[in-house]
Structure formats: structure tokens, C-alpha cells
């Protein structure tokens, strides 16, 4: 393809340059710092120190084990649930459509906090059961980690498997039946091998998310050393000093994710099968006895997913004395404090999230357009670099950004710019995925028609392509908004005093034992997240989750 410099060649180069500078360069700096010692000479001292630190080794093993266990649990929850929804018809089934929305809307930190309020050692349910003589195991540590993470991550498996089941050609199963295998054996031999890759791909995603998880780990892992927690703590204590250890730990985290991605590319994606356009089998009505079970299951899952929301709002209106919650007594104090006396976190969150959304969506649309419609070497490189942030946890990304932009000619540390930057970079891949899938379906011919009628290519982009993408733009914006405003792990690393966002404040209040105030901020956060979604769905009639 001809590389014409104006306008697309130039823009592609500019996008690439921006990404290389803000994504690739910090990663390079991070890697560099991990192999430099205090005198500036190359050395593997940091890695050796890590290998010798039994606490680190323990954390490493724990993180991997936690990843495996949680992944297994999410598969055990997500797969049967998806199968149930795809293949059966039962009362109240349409409530499940709410689930993916809930998972996105409720930030992790609120999930963790709420479950603590309910099942923690001093939790509502724990105390209630203790009154009956039933002692629940401590929610801190493995129990709480596995339970809360499973609840937060199962939707990845659920949605992935649901899509695979819905795209599965029912005729394959009929072919199996016609050849003599019973329905059960047919599903085993025909359905499972074809749907398995979808499960695996999403399972690997869940694994990397668990290993890099910040909020729930920090909240619940008190006696369980974990990689993500250790990395963050090392960063905090090394601040201003030699960043070797934190860099080395970050590199280890990146290595784990890279390893998982490698496995995914080589082993799993080879087995993803394209199927001819077939009809999925229509959902079957379930007999009344079983239908009760199905509805109950959906109800249970829904309730577990909704619980954090309910608890947060109840907690926001509950009276407190210092750190003690007086359940049953109501008060507006916490809310008043959050909204009136100390609303800076709310303002900050709104500011940063809006800026990040605008920057992110604009960049995503432009970059997607270039990658899909104007393929050149530069745009292909763009395609790969954009995906990089997906591979690293927020903590690691934050560390890389701080190390890079703390000194030198461009000092962004301590400014809002670095917050906005961290958000935009982290969530860019999602906005791009969204934009890309829409752009795929916009045929070249409409642009050519516009050009043939005398409108320049650049103006065609604004007059023809963008309007055609309107729905996608809105849903990208909302997705970016929702995910940046609840971002925590990169924020915690990158922020400085005065720049706290709502998630940071919630975290710090929970850390300080102020659960009432934390709930108040939490309620504000959830409200600010839900509002645009409600507007999008009701007013603009956009289905946010069709292009996942």
C-alpha cells in the first residue's frame, strides 16, 4: 500500500510515537532499572536478592497457586452457568442480562470491603451465625481471597463460554446423535472440544488478572504473602531510593503474564475453530421441578453479585463511632462528610476520568481507523504496541510510569497528567477493541462514495466514518469512563497528595478502619458509574455488551 504522508501517514507516525513514548519507553526504563545497581553498573543483584528472599519465593508460589485455584473456581461457576443460560428456558431467565453490567459497575475494592462487612470476623453474618453457635472460618487469607476473586472474575468465563455456546452450530450435535452417540456422550465428544478453547482463553485471562490483582489482595491477604502486595509495598518503601527491587519484582510479574500469553498463543489459539454460520440449538423449556432449581441458581448468583452494592449503600447510611459500625442505627454523617466536607476525591475522580475518557476514545478511534483502514507497517506496529498495557498489572504500569517520569526532562510525577496518562494507557486496549470491531463492519465503499462526490479523505473521516460509528463511540466512552473511574492499582502508585481519587480514598479509609466513610465514598462512586450507563441504555438505546 502506498504510504501517503498526508494525512494518514503522518497521523500513524504520530500515534506510534506517542504510544512508544508513553508505553514502551517506561517498560524499557523498568527493565533497565531491574538490572542496574546503585552505582549504575549492570548486575543481577536485585534478582538474586529476590531469589534468596524466602518471603518473596513464598509470595511467588502463593500467587501462582491462588491463580490456579481461583481460575478453577471461576470455571466451575462460569461454565455450568453459561450452559444453563444458553440451553434452557426458565422463569426470570432474563435477569441474567444484568450480571455483566454489575460486574463492571462494582469496583473490586467495594466487593472486598462489603464481603468483609458481611463475612469478616466481625461481620454481620458472622456475628449472627455466632449467635447460633456456628463459627465461620476467618474471611481473611485464602478463604476470602478465593471467594471474592471468584465472584469478581467468573463473568469472564461466563460471557466467553456463553458466546461460544451461542455461536455453536447445533447441527454438529445432531450429526453426533445421528451417528449413534447418546445426547450426553455427544455433548462430551462434540460440544466440549469445540467450546473448550473459549474456556481456556478466558481462564488464562482470569489467571493473569488474579496474579496481578491489587485491591482484594491488599485487603484480604494479611497473612498470605502475595506477589502483587509485595511489589506495591516494596515500591512504597523504596520511594525516592534505589528502585532495583521494585523493578525486579515488576519484571517477574511481567514474565509470568508473558509466559501465560505465550501459552495462549501457541497452544490454545491454534485450536480455536471457525464454524460455518449455524444455528445454535434453541433453548429448551425446563420441566417445572428443575426450572425451580435453575431460577434459584440464577437468583443466588445474582444476589452474590449484588450484595456489595446493597452493603455499600446500607453502610453509607449507617451510624458510626470512629471505626465502629452501629448497624441498625442510621445517620447521614458519613455521606455529609464525603460529599460536603471532603469532596476532593469525588472531584478528582470526575476530572481525571473525563479527561482520560476523552483522550482515550479520541486516540482509540484514530488508531483503530489507521490500523484497520490504512494498513501500513507503522499501523501494524501500532497494533502490537497498543496491546502491551493489557499484559501488565496496574501496579507494574504505575511503577514504570513513576520511574520514567519522576526525573529528567519530562517530570510528570505529582501532576494530574500522570494520573490521566496511567488511566488512558491502561484502558486504551478496550476502547480500541470496541472501535475496531465497529470499523470492521463499515465498508470501504462508503468512504469511496464520499470521496467520489468531492469530499477530502480527512473530511470524509469526520463526516462519514465517525457518524457511522456513533453507537460505538458512546459505548467506548462509557466503558472507558466506568473502568477508569474505578481504577485503583495504578492510581495508588502514581498519585501524590492532593490527587486522591475515590477508589484511593475508599482504600485508605478501609485501611484506616473507617468503613462508614468508605461506604459513603463507595456509594458515590457507584452512583457516578451507574448514571452514564443508565443514560446510555435508556436514552441512547445502546447495547453495551454486544461487542465484547
Amino acid at each position, binding site marked *: 500500500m502506498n504510504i501517503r504522508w498526508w494525512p494518514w501517514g503522518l497521523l500513524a507516525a504520530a500515534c506510534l510515537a506517542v504510544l512508544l513514548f508513553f508505553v514502551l519507553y517506561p517498560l524499557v526504563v523498568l527493565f533497565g532499572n531491574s538490572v542496574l545497581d546503585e552505582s549504575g553498573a549492570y548486575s543481577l543483584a536485585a534478582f538474586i536478592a529476590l531469589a534468596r528472599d524466602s518471603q518473596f519465593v513464598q509470595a511467588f508460589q502463593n500467587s501462582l497457586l491462588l491463580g490456579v485455584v481461583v481460575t478453577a473456581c471461576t470455571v466451575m461457576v462460569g461454565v455450568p452457568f453459561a450452559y444453563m443460560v444458553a440451553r434452557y428456558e426458565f422463569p426470570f431467565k432474563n435477569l441474567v442480562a444484568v450480571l455483566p453490567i454489575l460486574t463492571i459497575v462494582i469496583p473490586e475494592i467495594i466487593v472486598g470491603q462489603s464481603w468483609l462487612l458481611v463475612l469478616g470476623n466481625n461481620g454481620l453474618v458472622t456475628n449472627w451465625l455466632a449467635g447460633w453457635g456456628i463459627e465461620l472460618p476467618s474471611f481473611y487469607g485464602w478463604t476470602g481471597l478465593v471467594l471474592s476473586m471468584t465472584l469478581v472474575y467468573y463473568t469472564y468465563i461466563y460471557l466467553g463460554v456463553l458466546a461460544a455456546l451461542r455461536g455453536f452450530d447445533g447441527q454438529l450435535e*445432531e450429526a453426533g446423535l*445421528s451417528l449413534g452417540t447418546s445426547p450426553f456422550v455427544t455433548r462430551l465428544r462434540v460440544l466440549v472440544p469445540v467450546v473448550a478453547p473459549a474456556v481456556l482463553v478466558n481462564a488464562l485471562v482470569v489467571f493473569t488478572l488474579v496474579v496481578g490483582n491489587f485491591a482484594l489482595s491488599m485487603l484480604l491477604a494479611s497473612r498470605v504473602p502475595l506477589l502483587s502486595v509485595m511489589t506495591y509495598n516494596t515500591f512504597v518503601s523504596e520511594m525516592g531510593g534505589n528502585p532495583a527491587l521494585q523493578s525486579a519484582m515488576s519484571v517477574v510479574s511481567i514474565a509470568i503474564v508473558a509466559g501465560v500469553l505465550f501459552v495462549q498463543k501457541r497452544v490454545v489459539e491454534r485450536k480455536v475453530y471457525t464454524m460455518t454460520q449455524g444455528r445454535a440449538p434453541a433453548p429448551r423449556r425446563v420441566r417445572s421441578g428443575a426450572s425451580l432449581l435453575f431460577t434459584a441458581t440464577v437468583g443466588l448468583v445474582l444476589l452474590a453479585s449484588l450484595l456489595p452494592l446493597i452493603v455499600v449503600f446500607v453502610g453509607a447510611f449507617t451510624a458510626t463511632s470512629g471505626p465502629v459500625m452501629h448497624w441498625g442505627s442510621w445517620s447521614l454523617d458519613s455521606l455529609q462528610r464525603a460529599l460536603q466536607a471532603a469532596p476532593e476525591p469525588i472531584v478528582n475522580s470526575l476530572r481525571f476520568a473525563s479527561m482520560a475518557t476523552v483522550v482515550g476514545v479520541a486516540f482509540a478511534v484514530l488508531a483503530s481507523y489507521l490500523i484497520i483502514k490504512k494498513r501500513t507497517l507503522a499501523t501494524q506496529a501500532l497494533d502490537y504496541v497498543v496491546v502491551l498495557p493489557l499484559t501488565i498489572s496496574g501496579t507494574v504500569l504505575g511503577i514504570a510510569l513513576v520511574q520514567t517520569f519522576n526525573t529528567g526532562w519530562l517530570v510528570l510525577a505529582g501532576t494530574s497528567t500522570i494520573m490521566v496518562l496511567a488511566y488512558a494507557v491502561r484502558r486504551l486496549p478496550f476502547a480500541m477493541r470496541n472501535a475496531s470491531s465497529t470499523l470492521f463492519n463499515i465498508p470501504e465503499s462508503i468512504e469511496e462514495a464520499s470521496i467520489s462526490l468531492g469530499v477530502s479523505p480527512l473530511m470524509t473521516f469526520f463526516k462519514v466514518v465517525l457518524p457511522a460509528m456513533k453507537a460505538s463511540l458512546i459505548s467506548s466512552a462509557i466503558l472507558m469512563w466506568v473502568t477508569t473511574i474505578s481504577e485503583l492499582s495504578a492510581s495508588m502508585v502514581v498519585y501524590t497528595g492532593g490527587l486522591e481519587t475515590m477508589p484511593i480514598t475508599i482504600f485508605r479509609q478501609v485501611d484506616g478502619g473507617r468503613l462508614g466513610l468508605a461506604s459513603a465514598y463507595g456509594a458515590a462512586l457507584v452512583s457516578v458509574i451507574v448514571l452514564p450507563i443508565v443514560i446510555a441504555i435508556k436514552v441512547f438505546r445502546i447495547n453495551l455488551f454486544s461487542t465484547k
Partner: protein
Amino acid sequence: MAAITIDGIVKQFGGLTVLQQLSLHVPDGAFYTLLGPSGCGKTTLLRCIAGFYEPDGGRLLFDRDDVTRTPPHRRDIGMVFQDYALFPDKTAFDNVAYGLRARQVARAEIARRVAEALDKVGLAELAARYPAQMSGGQRQRVALARALVIRPRVLLMDEPLSNLDAKMRLQMRDVILDLVREAGITTVFVTHDQEEALAMSDRIAIMDRGRIAQLGTPEELYGTPANAYVADFIGSANLLPVPTTGAAEPGRVRYQLAGHALEGRRDGPAPGKGQGLLIARPEELALGAAAPPQPNALPGRVLRRQYLGFKTAYRVQLHDGPELRVEQHGGSHASAFQVGDAVQVLIPAHSRVIAADNA
């Protein structure tokens, strides 16, 4: 190999009755085709025979076994689907072996029979390939091999050739027929392509809105269509309402067309004076120059002309009569007419007239 008896099958979807008390008997080893436009119920009937739909009324028998309520995986059928339904995660070999493995056949035996089946469809060297690496025609043949290798009692085929290009379609017709004849399997074939049906079938059941409009050999359906629907579906026909003026002899009837008194063939009882429907096949009408005028030839003018290589199709407007479609086969220039030419049309005396209410 089994004969299939369909006895009064009824099938409803929601409030719609798709199959209406349908009965059909397919003799052991015969190749029967269900033919009709989309929505006529042919696929529904096939799926009832397969067992994927349970009929709401009636019975289904393979030989003497009542299989009406037997689930599909126990009916011992072989089915070829419209888009082949090959298992994408399995090689050609494993696809074909699937049914044998389900029947607990020994491994060595499986290897032998699969190799034989693939060989018969000419794909012996593709045994290790995956469906994604095969062309449409190759996949079709694997699907066929898979259905036949298990030696089922009946073979069911649901528009298996619709997704192939024209040339491949013709080739596969022969492949299917050869294999089926050799195995002697009772076959029910569904298609909407009448040429395919005519070429391949022992008998054809033309279906119309859940009923069988006519069951017969290709010659019967083409030569003696029972009603206008069948006449129009098989081949093409000019269907002309004509007043009948009584019978001349048994099997003959007189009628009026474009001011001429003509005679034609009839089946069934004498129509007497009344309305009839003349079935005049375009390729049987003779087209000649306007002069000299022939007795029983109807004068007219050429409205349109389409040259199609092996034939030329005309639309002729009769003076005092309707438009007729006429076809001339062969490329002889001498008999070619142009638009606007005055011509005369001769309707052969063996053209059939059926009673109007038979339509």
C-alpha cells in the same frame, strides 16, 4: 436396509401445522426425493424421520419397527446435513470413525472401514486433514463417507448439494448415486432443485404446504402432472384456462383456445362442458412462420426473444389469446425468429387438459 413407512404424520410449530396427516411409503433400497419450495415441509418431514422432531400425531416405522418415539441416536440412521456438520476439531479420519467408535467397533476394523470409505469417495490421502483445510466438495464427501461407513438402515440427506458451485454439484450427484446404489441403502433426499430430483430419484414426492401434491416417477410427474402446482414445479408449463366442450373419444377432450377448436388428451372422467386447464410445455409447442396458415395452428406475434445457446426462448402473443412461452431447441438459424415477427404456434394433440378444480 429398511423400508420407511410414514403413517399420518402431523407436526405443529406453535399454532402452525407444518405437516398435515402425511403418509408415504419408501420401499427398501429406493431413492426417494422430497421436492418443493422452502416452507413446504420437506425438511421438517426429513427431521421427523431422523428423530430430531417428534411428530404430534401419526406413526413412523422402519420395516416393522415403530420408531415414532425412538430417540435419534438409536434409530440407526445416516444423515448428511446441508452444511456437512463436520466436527471441526477432528480430522477427516476421526470424523468418519466417529460413528464406528460409538458402535464399539474394534480398532483394526475401524481403520480398515474408514480407509475404505474415504477411498470410495476419493479422499484417501486427505485422512489427516481438518475440515478447515478442505474445500466444500471435499467436506461434502467426508460427510457422505461418515454417514455411509456405519451401514445405516436409512440414509437421509438434507439439501446436501445446495452449498456447492454448479460444476461440483453435477459431479457430486454422480458420486452420491454410485455410492447409494452400490450400498443398496434406502435413501430420502430433500431438495428444492427439480432438475436434481428428476436426475437422481426413483420416485419424487412433491410437497405443497405440508401435503404431498403428487408422488410418482420423474416421467410420471413430468408427463402427467396431477395438478397445476406439480405441472408448474416440474419443468415449466403454460397453464391456460380453457373452456372444454366435451369428449371426442375416451382419453380425449375438445377445448377452445384463441378462437380455435382444438383437441387434447385427458386423464380421468369426461369433463363434459366446463372449465379445464391446458398444460402446454414450451418445448413441445411448434413455432412456424405465419404463412402459409396451418390448420390448428394459432397465429401470433413474437414479443420477446432470449437466446440461451442450446435453446431459444420466445414469448409469443397470440391474436385473440393469451401469451405463450415457446422454446426451440437446437441452434438452427433457419428457424430463428425476431421480435415482432408474425408466427403461428402449434399445440400438440397430446397436450393434457385437466379439470380446472384440480388446480
